[in-house]
């Protein structure tokens, strides 16, 4: 695939993520923060997000797996995940967290378990997509090309 094609693919791919609601405009904000002096900003932040989220999801699984669930512990984790996912634009993860928090407030263990599953699902999805996105970018850069600016047209 030549460079132009790769760039086009990247653009289409990125657009699709937005259209599917996996990413929202906050991600664009991140991309705008990236420039020549900070060429890897987005991938750095996103990587940090992945690491942090892995940890949080782990803690959540543990907390929810207890005999007696301590919602006072569960809620802050979900809250943080909500904050970080919204900060990078992982819209669906954030939305899943919102639902999760509601059930936490109601102290509904069953529902919380389901919510956790949902959150995990969305998280793996966005992680997967972003990893693909970064790979595409790397290919372009490796081929000597520039990452095209995202034009969402909406």
């Amino acid at each position, binding site marked *: 695939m030549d460079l132009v094609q790769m760039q086009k693919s990247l653009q289409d791919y990125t657009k699709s993520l937005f259209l599917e609601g996996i990413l929202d405009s906050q991600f664009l904000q991140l991309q705008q923060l990236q420039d020549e002096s900070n060429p890897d900003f987005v991938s750095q932040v996103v990587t940090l997000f992945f690491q*942090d989220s892995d940890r949080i999801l782990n803690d959540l699984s543990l907390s929810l797996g207890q005999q007696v669930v301590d919602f006072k512990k569960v809620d802050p984790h979900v809250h943080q995940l909500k904050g970080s996912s919204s900060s*990078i634009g992982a819209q669906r993860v954030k939305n899943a967290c919102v639902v999760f928090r509601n059930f936490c407030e109601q102290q509904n263990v069953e529902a919380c378990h389901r919510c956790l599953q949902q959150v995990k699902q969305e998280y793996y999805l966005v992680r997967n997509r972003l990893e693909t996105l970064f790979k595409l970018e790397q290919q372009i850069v490796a081929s000597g090309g520039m990452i095209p600016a995202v034009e969402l047209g909406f």
Partner: protein
Amino acid sequence: MINPGHGRGPDSGTNSDPFPAGLRVLVVDDDPTCLMILERMLMTCLYRVTKCNRAELALSLLRKNKHGFDIVISDVHMPDMDGFKLLEHVGLEMDLPVIMMSADDSKSVVLKGVTHGAVDYLIKPVRIEALKNIWQHVVRKKRNEWNVSEHSGGSIEDTGGDRDMQQPREDADNNSSSVNEGNWRSSSSRKRKEGEVDDQGDDKEDTSSLKKPRVVWSVELHQQFVAAVNQLGVDKAVPKKILEMMNVPGLTRENVASHLQKYRIYLRRLGGVSQHQGNMNHSFMTGQDPSFGPLSSLNGFDLQALAVVGQLPAQSLAQLQAAGLGRSSLIKPGMSGSPLVDQRSIFNFENPKIRFGDGHGQTINNGNKQMSLLHGVPTGMEPKQFAGSSHMRVQQQMAGMRPGQNVQSSGMMLPLADHLPRGGTSMLSSLGQQQPMFSTSVSRRSDLTGAVRNGIPETNNRVVPATHSVFNNFPADLPHNNFPLASAPGISIPVSASYQEEVNSSDAKGGSSAATAGFGNPSYDIFNDFPQQQQHNSKLNDWDMRNIGLVYSHQDTAAASAGFSTSEAYSSSSMQRKRRETDATVVTAHGQNQQPLSRSLNHLNHVFMDGGSVRVKSERVAETVTCPPATTLFHEQYHQEDLMSALLKQEGIPSADNEFDFDGYSIDNIPV
């Protein structure tokens, strides 16, 4: 990465980058992702950023580097320290503008930011646009301080430094996200008048140089300050006098003035008591061992206020109350309702209140028993027995109280408090005096628990045990709630105040104005919060009290707007009068059934006089009105409305609900 080229400082003016480039920002957030993004964004804005993921670390950084930062941005939810606490510390010790941020956009939290003195509140995800203008807070603060120093002659209060009088200032505080808004306005006009600084970039640099070197308010210095203020009386404390009393070399009147302003905000936040509750505060501060009688009333108020504000955990409130009221009475969690019954008009109060809360509890507390009414009321009482007895008691109380007993205040509060679960608390406090009452009330209702819980964030409205515990905790926690109490009175007092004629020394009017002043638009704030609570039972507790306070404040505009002054306002004489006024006011505020409301209020007042029948009524109303959860009643902007509406409805519902016609209360035994 700090861009060396951009810095504030002597050469910044000459730098091609105009201010606000180089603004020194400290950003605190435990979320590494957010922290990284924020740092990048701030740097893009050309600020000098220091990031920190722990609040304690941030504080120590700030302390070490007293003048090393211009503004702080902090997350609300952090594991090692609550963001609001950090906010307080920074405000008091370093006097830096602090911006709060969170993914939580609930009104209650945002309100908390306002009351704690944050200059702004950002909702995550934060966009760079929101950060581009944060420099305005730095400039504003500087201008305000500058203005304060300008008024060398008058006391801050007089000139209003930058604040136009306390009231406006407080209003401003409450109104805007920037605490200094009021000040800013006045100060800017003053500035212009004096041909001072223009708002050019230059000015910004100048303000730094014009500004005196920041005084760091160390813990000791602050203690001295507080001691001086207490001695003088919070309302009467004037920078000049405080300065003299503190006798600290190198400290200027301006330093004291600006610190006093912040301190007032802090107290206001705590319950708005501080300002007007000179007396009360004093007593509280001095140790929770206020004279039983008068103090009790105060305490009651304070506690309530505190409870209302939610600042004071229910427990502490209870404790405080216990302390204030003379512990002896309060601390009898074990008291069963019976003893209380006889005199417990207070309890009656509570019960009805509780019921009320239950009834419309939804609105307030989701109908939980938790009504904060009895905040702090010893759980000794059994709800059931209360129902009947409380009514009576209340009535008795009311009657009795009037004469100027502390209890009265509590009694008074009850009716009003009824609406607000929290009200219970105040009542409780007053009740504190009468221990039996408290216990009764406490046990009586889960509501009480709720009430008590005002201070204590409760997640469940119904926390019957809570009340108990609350009371039990009285003795324990009292001591350190000095402040809260102070503030509490403001809030709770409104309710009790009205009833309590003699309650406090402070002039009702004064109190009210104070309260109002303090709160700015407390009602609004609190009320907003209230709806929130409605939705979440747990939150209700906090608000209930507040609401109550607020409600009253509105009612008695003169009297006291939210929190603190309420008690004062009420305490003074015109209690009844005030109540009526309040009622009217409240009614108006509500707009719901204004007329009826006033009527009901009056009625309430009247009832109180009689001994509680009113209360019942109001309670009833509340019940009727608020039945639907999250009712509009409470979700109105002003809590008052809720209460009022409840009251109004009550009035408006000529039904049989006679005063004693509570849903939950068996009025039968109430000897009218």
